[in-house]
């Protein structure tokens, strides 16, 4: 059953008439070859996993193609689900989102193993393209089984005055690596890169990010928050690159780790490479534990330690969640996060 489009709800008429395309990658290759050729894996990924992205390129199966033409706004989120079933299944899903000039779209994607006992290998890539003035919101959550290996590449291109917000929620998998690269190619372009991860047991999340400021007057804001339990391990390695001439860049990069266990380990490597002088670039990283006083306050009110920890993690994550405008989506993500604590 892997790699197969099981079902798809049709787009509302007015969107279809306006030229919005929501199709599987396989079908889009046949129906819209020019668009696919222009945008499918058009960016070189260079954050270390070239081998996996090449494998993905060779074996892409399953996935979605979303195209929003000039000036069209899609007000309700488009949702894509991926399930991988069966032991030792390998999947290579691809999501391609193209928003033309002044278009607006929100895409939500969930990836998970069909059963907790299946071991999945996933090498996925998504391409996000925001044309001039376009607004793209991309939210993804993964809940692979706890024995799975996952790789996800996220290639973002933002043109003049375009805005992209991407949020990744990392819950499942044994070892998961994500690579996110935002390219700010036109003045006024902006990319917000958000991520939340909870590591339990021996889970490892390896996060690589790159904010490439290739034009003047661009902005980016990155916030990666990790909550670590048990022997959980996270690696954050990020870089802001400001090209010569990319003046008036405003870039921020922040990695915050909450270590809730004596055996948890966080690694943080936030980097800057700046070749223009009229810029404001800052980064920060903190590693800390749950505040004893906060824990005491909750305990004094009869709340058990695990529940209190969960509450405090929610408090820690709220800073990221509140950046989403859609209250309904925030609710969906909160439920997903909660499901992780119930196991």
């Amino acid at each position, binding site marked *: 059953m892997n790699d197969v489009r099981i079902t798809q709800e049709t787009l509302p008429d007015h969107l279809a008439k306006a030229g919005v395309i929501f199709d599987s990658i396989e079908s889009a290759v046949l129906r819209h070859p020019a668009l696919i050729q222009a945008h499918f894996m058009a960016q070189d990924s260079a954050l270390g996993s070239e081998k996996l992205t090449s494998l993905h390129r060779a074996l892409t199966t399953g996935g979605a193609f979303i195209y929003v033409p000039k000036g069209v706004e899609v007000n309700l989120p488009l949702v894509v689900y991926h399930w991988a079933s069966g032991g030792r299944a390998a999947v290579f899903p691809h999501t391609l989102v193209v928003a033309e000039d002044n278009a607006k779209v929100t895409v939500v994607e969930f990836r998970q193993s069909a059963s907790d006992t299946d071991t999945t290998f996933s090498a996925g890539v998504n391409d996000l393209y925001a044309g001039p003035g376009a607004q793209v919101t991309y939210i993804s959550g993964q809940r692979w089984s706890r024995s799975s290996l996952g790789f996800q590449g996220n290639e973002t291109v933002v043109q003049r005055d375009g805005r992209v917000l991407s949020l990744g929620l990392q819950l499942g998998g044994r070892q998961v690596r994500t690579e996110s690269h935002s390219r700010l190619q036109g003045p006024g372009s902006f990319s917000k890169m958000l991520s939340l991860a909870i590591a339990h047991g021996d889970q490892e999340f390896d996060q690589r990010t790159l904010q490439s400021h290739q034009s003047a007057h661009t902005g980016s804001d990155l916030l990666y928050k990790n909550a670590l339990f048990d022997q959980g391990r996270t690696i954050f390695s990020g870089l802001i690159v400001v090209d*010569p*001439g990319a*003046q008036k860049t405003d870039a921020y990069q922040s990695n915050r*780790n909450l*270590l*809730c*266990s*004596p*055996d*948890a*380990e*966080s*690694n*943080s*490597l*936030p*980097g*800057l*490479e*700046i*070749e*223009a*002088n*009229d*810029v*404001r*670039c*800052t*980064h*920060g*990283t*903190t*590693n*800390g*534990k*749950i505040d004893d006083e906060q824990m005491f306050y909750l305990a004094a009110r009869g709340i058990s330690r695990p529940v209190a920890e969960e509450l405090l993690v929610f408090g820690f994550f709220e800073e990221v969640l509140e950046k989403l405008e859609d209250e309904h989506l925030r609710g969906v993500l909160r439920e997903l996060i909660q499901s992780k604590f119930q196991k």
Partner: protein
Amino acid sequence: MSSLSESTEATLVPPEDTANPVTGIDQAVGDFTYDVKYNFDAGTGLNAATVDYISAAKKEAEWIREFRHKALKTFESMPLPTHWATKDLENIDFQKIRYYLAQGQKPKRSWEDVPDDIKKTFERLGIPEQERKFLAGVEAQFDSEAAYSNIKEAVQKQGVIFMNSTQALREHPEIFRKWFGKVIPVSDNKFSALNSAVFSGGSFIYVPPGIKVTHPLQAYFRINAENFGQFERTLIIVDEGSEVTYMEGCTAPKFTTSTLHSAVVELVALKGAKIQYITVQNWAPNVFNLVTKRGLAMENAEIKWIDCNIGSRLTMKYPGVVLKGEGARGEVISIALANDGQHQDTGAKMVHAANNTTSTVISKSISVGEGRATYRGVVHIPKHLKGCKNNTECDALLINTTSRTDTYPAITVKGGDNYTQHEASVTKVSEEQIFYMQQRGLTEAEAMSLAVNGFVNDLVRQFPMEYSVELKRLIDLEMEGSVG
């Protein structure tokens, strides 16, 4: 190679008269050279015979000679750092460097006895004057060996040992050998291996328990010869409850060929001891300055590196502290100024190895013209440690459109009872600030200078007064012509 007994006369080029600022902070002051004839010259290039020559010239014990040969093999087997370091390292030709140049191995105790040609160099740099003014002891190294070494009698009476390492290896092998190569192993990196093979000169300090050395001890390193490599080896051991401040300054004349300076500095602060190590590096812009510096802090000990990098073509230096005893503190304060053709690749390493250890890193860099400043940092808090704290701040200031800065921190924390915090910012001098000052009658260049001095002011104030005044003046000099 010249024979060991050969002696030739020195020829002198008369110096021009210049004012003496504090030790070599001003680049122009260090940019002169005298034609000195060396009695000892290991020749150009590096092989086992070079090592034997150095060892024989110093009449070293057999274990040291063996140590050097082993280190040479390690050096030859190690690659240059490639994937992260600048490609400029590949421009060093190890076979075109002279590894040992000296007039003799025994430094003079009084300035009168120092050979004229060398004395003139140090007089011009203001060393004897400073010694009279505010130092407890001075060591002046000229190329491979110390030419002058003196410690004030009162300090010596306290049992403090301050001499060059060549002499210390002969006179105090029992203390030296115990810690030698223990803080920085030979194979730490390619350049620490190189230093271990051909080291010469550097300071050795031992402060006995309960002694607070009130005035700073100073070493001054001077490179005079062209195509030369200086490889000093410094070892400072401060016994329980003692305190010492050590300062080093360095200059070299500017040659068209490249010069290599590759030191290894090891500090040991025993229980409750305090070491403050101040460096003002002002090598000429053709010097590769590739230095390994690390301190070991035992229980409740404190090691503070104050590191100021202004000169050199390429500096790669990351002073570190291994916090080995409970309650130990480590601190690195770093100022880097990168002008045209310069790359200041500096930073800090903090390795926490005991409970309740704290470390602080404050780094400020200024990139002017086409200069490039890089911060690299490591903070390591391993498993099961409790109550460890690190605070890192790096600020970079970019002056011109062609200036460049990079920040690469690496922070590893295991366990839930430790705190780290890292912040970095990159900015330029705000137009409002410049406008405000111009309105009050300052030129744009003056305003820029003032703003830059303000940027590093809180760090500069941590230097001894004599240095901080000069540092400010130097920043003014470096900023000249950078705007407008």
